[in-house]
């Protein structure tokens, strides 16, 4: 079920080398390396600047689907759906986390602009989704409350 050979190759040569060698990455579409500056951003604007977002505008076409309250901040389910035509990227922020950027999802032509994951939240905070489409950045914000747990807390 798991391709042992491929995994060895990955471990030995690094993922990009391996895929390039195996012809798995389309030429000219080798992905950017992990955006260290953006992930180390302490504020939303710092992180946005690091992904090249100069301005953002609020949009109803960007939707954050999440419960208003999280029973536990360690695991908070969040779905982001973009109805903005030409969406190429979905970026998820948690305003009050020590590092605000949670994830960057590249939306190629073969996937829907609809991703679901689970994030950690240190405390009650705004969660922001920023969508890149045709060079524009559109945003939506939702507050999610984090409650204290039972017994010892």
């Amino acid at each position, binding site marked *: *079920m*798991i*391709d042992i050979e*491929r*995994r060895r190759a*990955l*471990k030995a040569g*690094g*993922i990009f080398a391996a*895929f390039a060698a195996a012809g*798995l*990455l*389309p030429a000219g*579409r080798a*992905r950017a390396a*992990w*955006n260290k500056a953006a*992930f180390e951003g302490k504020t939303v604007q710092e992180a946005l600047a690091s992904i090249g977002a100069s301005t953002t505008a609020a949009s109803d076409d960007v939707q954050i689907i999440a419960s208003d309250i999280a029973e536990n901040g*360690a*695991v*908070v*389910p969040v*779905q982001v759906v973009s109805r903005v035509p030409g969406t190429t990227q979905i970026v998820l922020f*948690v305003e009050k*986390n*020590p*590092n605000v*950027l*949670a*994830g*960057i*999802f*590249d*939306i*190629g*032509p*073969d*996937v*829907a602009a*609809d*991703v*679901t*994951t*689970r*994030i*950690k*939240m240190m405390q009650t905070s705004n969660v922001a989704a920023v969508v890149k489409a045709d060079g524009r950045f559109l945003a939506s914000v939702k507050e999610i409350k984090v409650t204290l747990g039972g017994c010892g807390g």
Partner: protein
Amino acid sequence: MANPMRIRAAAKDGITEVRVLMNHEMETGQRRDASGAVVPAWFIQEVSARLNDKDVMSAQWGPSIAKNPYFAFKIKGGKAGDTVSVTWVDNRGDTRTDNAKVT
């Protein structure tokens, strides 16, 4: 070595819905252990997915993604019998690839 992922992929009406559970600590680097020492950051940084070896999805993650990450997305196209494969790479350079047949 990293433990396997659980991948489910189901095709319906021309869309393949993929749901992935990954085995990973996703340690933030902010936490302290019982002795007060900082537990070093250890988290998945890059995730990519392929449908029959065609690259369809990639993502970059920070330590704010929850432990034992869950990731769901929708591929345009795909049919029963196709193969979805998912790869992650963490900040230590460890990596894991698993495959699943589309149902």
